[in-house]
C-alpha cells in the first residue's frame, strides 16, 4: 500500500455561531502521492470547510491531520505558515492575485518568502512555471490587467513555485467558462501525470470530477463514498 501524502483522522468541526452546529462528522480519509482526487457534494455539505482544515488555515477542529506522516494538528501558527508555504499550493475560485504586483512577482512571492533560493533562481523558476502554463508572455503585465482564465493559470503557477507536496483547489473552475475550465483541468491532469503531483480539488462540476482518479462524495458533513 502507498503511503498517504495527506491523511485526516476522525475530524469533527463545529460552527459556534449563530447556534452550535456540527459541520463535519468523523471525517477520515487519505490522499496518496500522485493521486488526483476531487471532493463533491451539495452546497453546505462541508466540503469547503474540510478543504480549509486540510489546508492548515483553519485550526479550530477536533481530530488529527497528517502531512507526509507528520502530525500537523496543534502546531504553532508560524510553523503552519511555513508548512503552507513549502508543502501546499493553493488555487481558489476567485483567482486571488495581488493586484498591485506584476504576474511574475505574484508567482515569485511564495518562493521569496521561503527564501531557499537566490532571487535569480526564483525568477528563473517562476518563468519556467509560466512556460508550463503557456503564459510566459504575461510575465511583466500587472495582475489586474489580465483575463479571468489567465489569472487562474497564474494562480496555478504560483501554487507550483515551491514544488509543493500537494495542490488544493476550492472550485478552481467555478468561475470560468467551459473552454477555460477544460484548460485548467488539462493543466491539472498534466501536472498529475507528468510530475506525479498530488491534487485535491473541491468541485461542483460533475464532468470535471468524473475525469479525476477518485471522487470523494460528501453529504451532511460525512463522507459517503471514497
Amino acid at each position, binding site marked *: 500500500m502507498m503511503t498517504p501524502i495527506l491523511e485526516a483522522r476522525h475530524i469533527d468541526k463545529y460552527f459556534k455561531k449563530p447556534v452550535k452546529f456540527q459541520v463535519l462528522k468523523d471525517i477520515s480519509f487519505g490522499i496518496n502521492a500522485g493521486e488526483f482526487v476531487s471532493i463533491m457534494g451539495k452546497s453546505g455539505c462541508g466540503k*469547503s470547510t474540510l478543504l*480549509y482544515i486540510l*489546508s492548515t*488555515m*483553519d485550526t479550530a477542529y477536533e481530530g488529527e491531520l497528517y502531512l507526509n506522516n507528520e502530525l500537523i494538528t496543534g502546531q504553532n*501558527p*508560524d510553523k503552519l*505558515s*511555513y508548512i*503552507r*508555504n*513549502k508543502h501546499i499550493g*493553493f488555487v*481558489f*475560485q*476567485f483567482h*486571488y*492575485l*495581488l*493586484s*498591485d*504586483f506584476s504576474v511574475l512577482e505574484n508567482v515569485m*512571492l*511564495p518562493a*521569496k*518568502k*521561503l*527564501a531557499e533560493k537566490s532571487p535569480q533562481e526564483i525568477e528563473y523558476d517562476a518563468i519556467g512555471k509560466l512556460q508550463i502554463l503557456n503564459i510566459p508572455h504575461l510575465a511583466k503585465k500587472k495582475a489586474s490587467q489580465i483575463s479571468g482564465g489567465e489569472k487562474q493559470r497564474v494562480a496555478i503557477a*504560483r501554487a507550483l513555485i*515551491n514544488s509543493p507536496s500537494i495542490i488544493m483547489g*476550492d472550485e478552481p473552475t467555478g468561475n470560468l467558462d467551459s473552454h477555460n475550465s477544460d484548460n485548467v483541468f488539462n493543466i491539472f491532469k498534466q501536472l498529475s501525470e507528468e510530475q506525479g503531483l498530488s491534487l485535491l480539488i473541491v468541485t461542483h462540476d460533475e464532468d470535471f470530477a468524473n475525469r479525476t482518479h477518485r471522487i470523494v462524495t460528501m453529504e451532511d458533513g460525512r463522507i459517503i463514498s471514497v
Partner: protein
Amino acid sequence: MNWKVILNIAKTHLITKIKQTAIAALGVTFGIGSYITLVSFMTGLNTMLDDLMLNQTPHIHIYNEIKPSKNQPLTLYDELSNSFHVVHSIKPKLNQKKIHNALPIIQYLEEDDQVRGALPQIKTSIFYIAGSIEIGGTLTGINVIDEANLFNLRDYIVQGTPEALDITDNGILLGIGLAEKMSLAVGDRVQVSTSKGDVFPLKIVGFYQSGVADIDAVQSFANLKTVQRILGEAENYITDINVKLKDIEMALPMSKKIENQFDLTAVDIKTANAQFETGTTVRNLITYAVSITLLIVAGFGIYNILNMLIYEKMNDIAILKATGFSGKDVQYIFMSQAMIIGFVGGILGLLVGYVLAKFIGTIPFETAALPRVKTYPVNLNPMFFLFGFIFAMVSTFLSGYLPSKKAKRIDPVTIIRGQ
C-alpha cells in the same frame, strides 16, 4: 524574518496608493514642521526675554543691607529670656555702605572654581544737573571691560563703546532716557552732583538702553575710579560685588556660603527673580502642549489611513496568509508602511520646520524695549530636531501598531469564503 520581501510588499502598497500615502505623510510633515517652527520660535522668544532680565543680573549679588539688628540688647538680658519682648521704634543698625575688605573678598571669589567672575561696583545716588533742574538718578561705578565680557553690557550700549568709557577718565555712559530729557548727545558734558553737594562735569561717551524705561531714566555708568573720586573715597571703596557662576544652579548654596563666611547679604538670582522663572516655565509648558497636540493629530491621521488601507487590502492579506506568510509577516508589512510614512513625513517636516523658522528669523522685529534685537529671535536647537524626529517615529509606530495588529489577526478563511 524575510525583510526584503516584507519591505518590497510594503513599498508596492505605498506606491500604488501614492495619494493616500502622501496625505498621511503630509499629516506628519505638518505636525513635525509646526512643532519645529513653534518650538524654535517660542524658545527663541523665551531666551530673549530671559536674557533681557538675566544677562544683566548677577548670579549672586553681594552687598551690605541696611536693616535692624536681629538681636536687640533686650534679648541679651538673661533674666527676661523667657518673657515676651516688645520693643518700640527699632532703628536700623548704623552700618557703612562699603563692603569691608572688598578687594580681598573679590580675590578670594575669583579663585573659586565655580566662579566665572566677581566684579566690584559702586552704586551711588546722584543728581544730574540741567540748568536749574536737578534730576535724581543712580551712578554705578564699574570695571567696564569686565562688565561687557560677563554681563553683556555691550548689547545695551546703543551709542559708543565700552572701550571708549574705559579710556575716558571723566567719561559717563548715560541712560538713554536721561539723554532725551536733557537733550544731550555723545561728546556733550553733563554735570552731576553728589548727595554731599559736590558738582563734577563728566563727558558723555555713550548711551545705555536696558529696555526698561524706568531704569533708563535714572541709570548711568562710569569707571570705578571716577565714581570713587566723585565720592571722595579711597580705592578700596566698593559697595556691591556681582558674581557670575559657571553653573546657575549653584547660586543658592553659594550665596548662603558667602553670607555665612563674610557676614554680608548675598542674594541669588533665583530668589531675586522667582516670579520670572514661573513665567518661563509656563511659556515652555504651553509650547510643548501645543506641539504635542499637533503631533497627536498627525498620529490619528496615520491611524485612519492605515486602517483604510488594511480594509482595502483584505484580499491581499488573505492571499499572503494562504500562501505561507505568517500573521507576524503581515503585521510587519503594515508596520513598515507606517514607519516609512513616519520617516519620510518626519524628515520633510524637519526641513519645512527649519525653513519656516529661518524665515521667521528674517522678519524685522524692532522695539524700543529691546535695542539689540532686529529680527524675531528663533532658537534652532539640534535637540528639537532630534526630538521631533523621534516623536515622528514613535507616533507613527503607535498609530500603525493597532491597525497592523488587526491585519495580523485577520482570518484568511473568512475572507476567501466570504466572496
